[in-house]
């Protein structure tokens, strides 16, 4: 009874405060000239409208549930000061429509355009953040929506750069339709759960486009990851659902479309991996379903670098990869079945769409390249074709149980574009 009364009280206060909500306007010729002054005046539920103009401010902080709206994209210049622009610990707030630039860099402090901690029920959207150290730092937040923000950094080295979205111990967050480039990690997630990441474009970040650590039960889909230093890394996490993402043009020595390390019980479906040095680097991952993914013209479509068990690869397209599969330890209990392999040269006499002879995705040459990487310059040599062929006819080095017994004759769901 007491508890429900408390709830009632909260709702009552909320309604009352909303009824009393007023609007504060900020502009150069207005009575209130800075956003900071406006936030000091604003009460719970108030709306602050910031007119177009240049505001040189940092450390705008508030604890109330207020709404700050930039009209015609006013600019906030942080002038590289060692302070975050917005520093928020509040519930039920929203911020939208700002251009924020020159967020200061620090080796010791976490400085961001938006530093939000211990908050819930908030929306930050339609902002453009340029030349920043961190764009968003979110600590212990819940039920936040971050959408349509554009983040541009000019990161050169990892040590002196920050992440676009940095989530730490968050829950039930939604990060949608953002564009992130030139940061260290596009999106960094640590100890955060039940969150959705969708329709983001994470491009040309110097480390990872997306980086998961110890974050379970998350889902990311319809994102594009392109030209990031090392691709996307998902590490030490369980029950991650990844679908409809595009990973492409991640080139480099230690670069991949997707790195999976110690991932259990994940679903990887309908993704496109195109022209990456390594499509997916799989290190110690168990019970993952790979389905309907497209691996197109990667150096290595799949590279296994640790013990992996009970992974199922079915209905994927492997097309024109230099190597479809490579591994350096034992591959036990993984199933490759009913995939389309562009290298497959078998026949289908009974016309059921399934090749009548199994396909062996591991080439002898990939074995050679694993041992002596310099031999890579012999790729596509006639000699290499000959040794691959002879190994195919009578396997000696490659495991004879590693094969797709039902290779498809035609690609699955060919990409339309």
């Amino acid at each position: 009874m007491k508890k429900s009364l408390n709830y009632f009280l909260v709702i009552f206060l909320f309604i009352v405060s909303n009824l009393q909500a007023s609007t504060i306007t900020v502009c150069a010729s207005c009575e209130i000239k800075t956003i900071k002054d406006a936030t000091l005046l604003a009460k719970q539920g108030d709306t602050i409208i910031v007119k177009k103009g240049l505001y040189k401010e940092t450390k705008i902080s508030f604890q109330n549930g207020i709404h700050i709206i930039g009209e015609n994209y006013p600019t906030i210049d942080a002038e590289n000061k060692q302070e975050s622009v917005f520093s928020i610990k509040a519930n039920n707030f929203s911020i939208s429509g700002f251009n924020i630039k020159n967020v200061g860099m620090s080796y010791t402090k976490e400085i961001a355009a938006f530093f939000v901690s211990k908050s819930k029920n908030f929306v930050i959207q339609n902002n453009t953040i340029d030349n920043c150290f961190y764009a968003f730092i979110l600590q212990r937040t819940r039920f936040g929506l971050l959408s349509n923000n554009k983040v541009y950094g000019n990161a050169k080295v990892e040590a002196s750069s920050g992440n676009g979205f940095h989530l730490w111990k968050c829950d039930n967050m939604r990060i949608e339709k953002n564009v992130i480039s030139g940061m260290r990690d596009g999106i960094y997630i640590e100890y955060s759960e039940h969150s959705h990441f969708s329709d983001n474009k994470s491009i040309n970040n110097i480390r990872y486009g997306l980086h998961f650590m110890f974050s379970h039960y998350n889902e990311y889909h319809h994102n594009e990851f392109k030209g990031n230093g090392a691709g996307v890394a998902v590490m030490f996490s369980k029950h991650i659902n990844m679908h409809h993402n595009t990973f492409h043009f991640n080139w480099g020595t230690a670069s991949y479309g997707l790195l999976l390390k110690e991932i259990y019980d994940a679903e990887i479906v309908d993704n496109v991996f195109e022209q990456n040095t390594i499509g997916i680097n799989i290190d110690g991952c168990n019970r993952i379903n790979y389905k309907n993914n497209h691996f197109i013209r990667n150096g290595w479509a799949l590279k296994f670098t640790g013990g992996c068990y009970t992974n199922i690869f079915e209905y994927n397209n492997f097309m024109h990869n230099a190597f479809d599969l490579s591994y350096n330890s034992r591959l036990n209990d993984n199933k490759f079945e009913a995939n389309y392999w562009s290298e497959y040269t078998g026949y289908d006499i009974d016309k059921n769409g399934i090749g009548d002879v199994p396909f062996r995705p591991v080439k002898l040459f990939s074995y050679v390249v694993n041992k002596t990487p310099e031999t890579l310059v012999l790729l596509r040599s006639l000699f290499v074709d000959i040794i691959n062929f002879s190994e195919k006819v009578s396997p000696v080095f490659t495991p004879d149980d590693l094969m797709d017994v039902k290779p498809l004759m035609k690609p699955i769901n060919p990409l339309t574009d």
Partner: protein
Amino acid sequence: MLKILKYSIVDLLRSRWSYVYFAFYLLLGYVLLFLNNDINKAVITLMNIIIVLTPLIGTIFGVMYYYNSKEFTELLLAQPIKRSTIFIGQYLGISLSLTLSLLLGLGIPFVVYGLFKSAAIFDFSLLILVGAFLNFIFVALAFNIALSNENKIKGFGFAILMWLFLAVIYDGIFMISLMMFNEYPLDKFSLFATMLNPIDLSRILILLKLDISALLGYTGAVFKDFFGTNLGAILSLLVLCFWVAIPLLRINMKLKKKDF
């Protein structure tokens, strides 16, 4: 020289073999396009074929032309023409007509399938460029072999052996030596060994276009500079030019002392 070039080309354009070669490429182009139904993929498949086949055809054609036109050559030698003019003219005649067959044989089907509207035009141009280089290199090498061997059978034998060596055996030795010495840093060696074989060199040019994602997976600063920048393409093209020039110089040297 232009006169000799003209007559060689006229002679070759009337020879059955030029048409066989042209028809072969025409057929190859159509079949690949028909099977793939995609210009990009057809170009990729073709690249693999071209780097092995053009050297073989260039070699055989060069040797065959040399031996078959011996009398013609002697007729020319009695005319007031410089020796080198005769041979360089003939050499250019064969190389150009082979390149023409390649260009038209593959060009026609690809243009019919809409090459000009496709993004593959750049890859296709590279393909033709590499094919042309291989023609010029291997006809020159074939002439060298033919000039050094009066015996036709022997000359043919050496020419085929040379092709087999450069297309397959060289890479085998190359791979085995890389594997044997794999405790040592080998990136410079492997790039150098690539330069010594025109087929490998052409392959590298094609890898740069098709498999750059895989090539950049190797950890080595030399590799990275070579493949990651334009250095690789520029250097490869330059060395290919050397591969044309050096056999030609040797032909010239050989001619000064040759008796007919």
